[in-house]
C-alpha cells in the first residue's frame, strides 16, 4: 500500500494514472448519472406523503454525502502534506476544496427547493441543513485561506492545518446542531421520514450516490491534471509524455 502512496506522490506517475482514470471515469460517471436520474425521475414511484417532489432526494442526498466525505478526503490530503511532505497532496487539496464546496452548494440549494413544496418554506433551520450550511462555511474558509497567502507552500500547509482542525470539529458541530434542533423542536413533528425507505427508491438512490462519488473523483482528477500541466509545462517528462 505504501508503494502506491509513494508512486502517487510522483508527478509523472500521477499524471499517467490520472489520464487512465479520467478516461475510464468519464463514460462510467456519465452513464451512471443518466441511468440513475432516469430511474429516480421516471421509474421510481412517487412518495406516499410528499408526492413527486421527493425525487429531489436523488440529487440532494448524494451531493450531501459526497460533500461531507470530501471534506475528510481533503483533510487526509492535508495530513499527508504536513506529515509526509507529499507535494501531490497539496495539489489534491487545492482541487478538492472547490469541488467539495460546489457539491455542498448543490446539497443546500436542492434541499431548499425540496423544502418549499414539502414544508412550505424556502428555508427551514432543521439540523441537517444547518450542519450542511456550516460545512459550506468550512469549505469556503479553506478556499479563502488558500488565496490569502502569497507563498504557495505556506498556503498549502495552512489549509492542511485548517482542514484538520475542521475535521475534528465536524462531528462536534453535527452533534451539537442535532441537540440544538431537538431543543427547539416541537416534539410532534418529524420531518423527512427516515422510516424504512422502499427498495424501489433505495436502489436508484444508491446508484446516484455511487455516481456522485465518481463525479467527485473525476472532477478532482481533472483539476489536478490541469494543475500538473501548468506547473510542469517546461519539464522534460511532461513534454515527452505529450509528444
Amino acid at each position, binding site marked *: 500500500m505504501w508503494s502506491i502512496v509513494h508512486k502517487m506522490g510522483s508527478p509523472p506517475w500521477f499524471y499517467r494514472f490520472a489520464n487512465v482514470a479520467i478516461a475510464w471515469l468519464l463514460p462510467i460517471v456519465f452513464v451512471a448519472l443518466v441511468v440513475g436520474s432516469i430511474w429516480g425521475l421516471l421509474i421510481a414511484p412517487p412518495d406516499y406523503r410528499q408526492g413527486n417532489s421527493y425525487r429531489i432526494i436523488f440529487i440532494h442526498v448524494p451531493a450531501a454525502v459526497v460533500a461531507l466525505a470530501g471534506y475528510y478526503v481533503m483533510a487526509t490530503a492535508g495530513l499527508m502534506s504536513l506529515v509526509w511532505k507529499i507535494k501531490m497532496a497539496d495539489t489534491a487539496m487545492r482541487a478538492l476544496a472547490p469541488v467539495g464546496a460546489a457539491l455542498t452548494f448543490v446539497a443546500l440549494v436542492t434541499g431548499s427547493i425540496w423544502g418549499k413544496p414539502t414544508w412550505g418554506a424556502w428555508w427551514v433551520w432543521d439540523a441537517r441543513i444547518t450542519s450542511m450550511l456550516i460545512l459550506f462555511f468550512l469549505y469556503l474558509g479553506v478556499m479563502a485561506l488558500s488565496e490569502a497567502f502569497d507563498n504557495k507552500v505556506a498556503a498549502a500547509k495552512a489549509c492542511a492545518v485548517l482542514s484538520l*482542525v475542521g475535521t475534528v470539529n465536524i462531528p462536534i458541530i453535527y452533534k451539537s446542531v442535532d441537540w440544538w434542533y431537538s431543543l427547539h423542536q416541537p416534539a410532534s413533528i418529524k420531518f423527512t421520514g427516515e422510516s424504512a425507505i422502499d427498495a424501489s427508491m433505495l436502489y436508484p438512490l444508491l446508484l446516484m450516490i455511487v455516481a456522485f462519488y465518481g463525479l467527485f473523483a473525476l472532477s478532482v482528477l481533472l483539476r489536478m491534471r490541469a494543475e500538473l500541466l501548468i506547473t510542469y509545462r517546461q519539464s522534460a517528462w511532461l513534454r515527452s509524455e505529450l509528444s
Partner: protein
Amino acid sequence: MLPELGTFLRFQMQRHLQAALRRPSDIVGPLIFFLMVITLFPIGLGPDPKILASLAPGILWVVALLSSLVVSGRLFQADYEDGTLEQLALSPHPLAISAMVEVFCHWLLSGVLLALASPVFAALLSMPSQAIPVLMASLTLGTLCLSLIGAVAASLTVALRRGGVLLSLLSIPLTVPVLIFGTAAVREAALGYDPSSWLALLGALAAGGCVLAPLAIAAGLRISLEA
C-alpha cells in the same frame, strides 16, 4: 529544564499582562463594544421586556462571540511584528506552551472580564436573575473555548495583510457548538431547569480545546513565520 520552564512561563505571563495593562483601552474597549451592541437589540427589537427576556440568552452569547472574534485579531500580532515570535519559536521551550501563555492571559483580560461584567448586560435585557450565575459560568468556560478557537485562526492569519475578516470567517463555523451549549445552559437556567449537562459539555469542549488547540496554534505560528 523544569525550573527554567517555570521561570520562563512566569516571565512570559508578566510580559503579556504588563503590555496589556499599559493600554487599558484595549481591555475596556471590548466591554464597551459589548455594551453598545447589547443596546442595539432593544432599539431594534422593541423594549418589551418579555420578548427581550426570551431572546436574552441568545443575544448575550452571540454578542460575546462577536466580541471574542474582534479581540482575537490582536492575538500574536505584536509579537509577530517585533520579532519576538521568531525568538519564541527558536527557543528550547515549546512554542505551543509560549503561545498558550499568551492565549491564557488574553482570555483573562477579555473573556473572564466579560463573564464578570455580564450580570449588568443581563439586567439590560431583563433576563431572569436566577440564570445569572449560570450565565457567568457558561461565559467563563465558553470564552475560553472561543479564545482557543480564535487563537488557532489567528495563528494561521497573523502573517496575512488583511487577516482580520478572514479570521472571523475561519472561526465562526468552529464556534457554533460553543454557542449552542452556552445558550442552552443559560436558557435552561432561566426556565428553572438544570443546566449542568450543558455546562459539562462546555467544560468538555474547553478541556479538549486546551489539549488539542496548542498543537494547531504552534503549527499555525510556524507556518506564518515562514510565509
